[in-house]
């Protein structure tokens, strides 16, 4: 190996480390939200840790495509998370043996208000799947109505209409 090649490899190693630091800085703030996203949707709950890890791997592999804008980056990450969730629900999730610590923390965590959680969960079950997911994305995951609808392939006007309709139904069930 020539000295030039050694220098090139060193340069590549430095660049790679820099890429990794930048990537971690960009996505780390989103990860607690993504974990919560899975906790809300995955059963058993501790499997959320494996889904989170799989999402992290997918984000890393597509790191060059990460939007620079923070809100776009968050929506992008949720788009990836949604695909991981769909795979998990189809039983196609890869075995990821990295998340033991997070798994164990999730296993022992208790739901803050179990009665309310159960009541709300039952009410949400009365909605159709799209409306239910729209409500979750808006109320729990913090998306605006249009952005939540976009994640589900809905136009903003349709999102607003569906969300209003879902709230009417939930009022009747919960209040």
């Amino acid at each position, binding site marked *: 190996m020539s000295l030039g090649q050694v220098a090139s490899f060193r340069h590549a190693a430095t660049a*790679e480390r820099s890429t*990794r630091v930048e990537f971690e800085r960009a996505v780390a703030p989103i990860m607690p939200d993504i974990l919560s996203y899975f906790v809300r949707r995955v059963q058993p709950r501790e499997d959320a840790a494996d889904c989170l890890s799989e999402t*992290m791997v997918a984000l890393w592999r*597509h790191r060059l495509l990460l939007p620079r804008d923070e809100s776009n980056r968050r929506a992008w990450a949720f*788009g990836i998370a949604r695909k991981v969730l769909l795979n998990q629900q189809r039983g196609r999730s890869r075995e990821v043996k990295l998340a033991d610590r997070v798994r164990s*923390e999730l296993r022992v965590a208790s739901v803050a208000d179990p009665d309310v959680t159960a009541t709300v969960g039952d009410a949400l079950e009365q909605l159709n799947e799209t409306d239910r997911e729209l409500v979750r994305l808006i*109320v729990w995951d913090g998306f605006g109505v249009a952005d939540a609808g976009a994640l589900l*392939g809905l136009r903003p006007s349709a999102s607003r209409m569906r969300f209003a309709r879902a709230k009417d139904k*939930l*009022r009747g069930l919960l209040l």
Partner: protein
Amino acid sequence: MSRSNDDELLALLQRGDPANGHGASDSSVRRLLGDSIDSALPSRAHRVRRRRAWVIGGLAGALAFGLAAPAVSGILAPTGDLTGASVEVARPAPTPTFQVGSGRMPLAAESTEPSSTEVENGSHEVNPTASGGVPGYISFPPTDDASTVYGLTIAEEVRGESASQLSGTGYGSSDSAAIAAGTGIASIEAGARCAWTQEWLVATAAKDSKRADAAASVLTTAATWPATLVLGASVVEGFSKAAAAATDGDVMAVRGDFIGSCTTLLSDPDREDE
């Protein structure tokens, strides 16, 4: 419906969030992030095997195609990033058919296939026969020149992975650019762009101006492909500059863009301890 009524409902729904008090600590999540990245990187032994496979493949390709392989080597070797020893090509299955957009994208000819079992198909997630989910405006260089295998393999890999991600999501019908970016169409666009960038580099080295002009034309268009636009003004500006460099015949700039934008698109780009 009164505002207070609305607020009361939303407050109740938030209290019923199953993720309230879910318990995973920030430090654990951050550690998992590091572990997950590590898991996505290949082992050193894996990289060595793949590098050896590439050397064998490169030699076979050079013998089979004479001018073409040395041409691309000549383009890229001065950087040190894409010498035969450091490029890791995740080889697809032999002789796949690849019909996408308006272009046909056969990968390297059989003659570049090393006969040894040392070649590892690192792109285990690639689905070379899948064709769903690729927008019609995306095309790939209509060439089977082995010297473009690197760019084409990137395209193949990101496209295969994206196609598998697209399946069953129903995102394809969305007109939201943000969703297009999140569903993998941006990955397909990026792969196609890399293939056309390398097409330009090879054509320019071969002094084939017609072929280079065609590639530059696609690169100009590629900077405004819809999912690319969502990546932000800085990305679009960078791609536009690279396209302008191709139009102007600026080899150094195009080469720099290829290395910066394309060489780490492969799923196993790590070379840090070599």
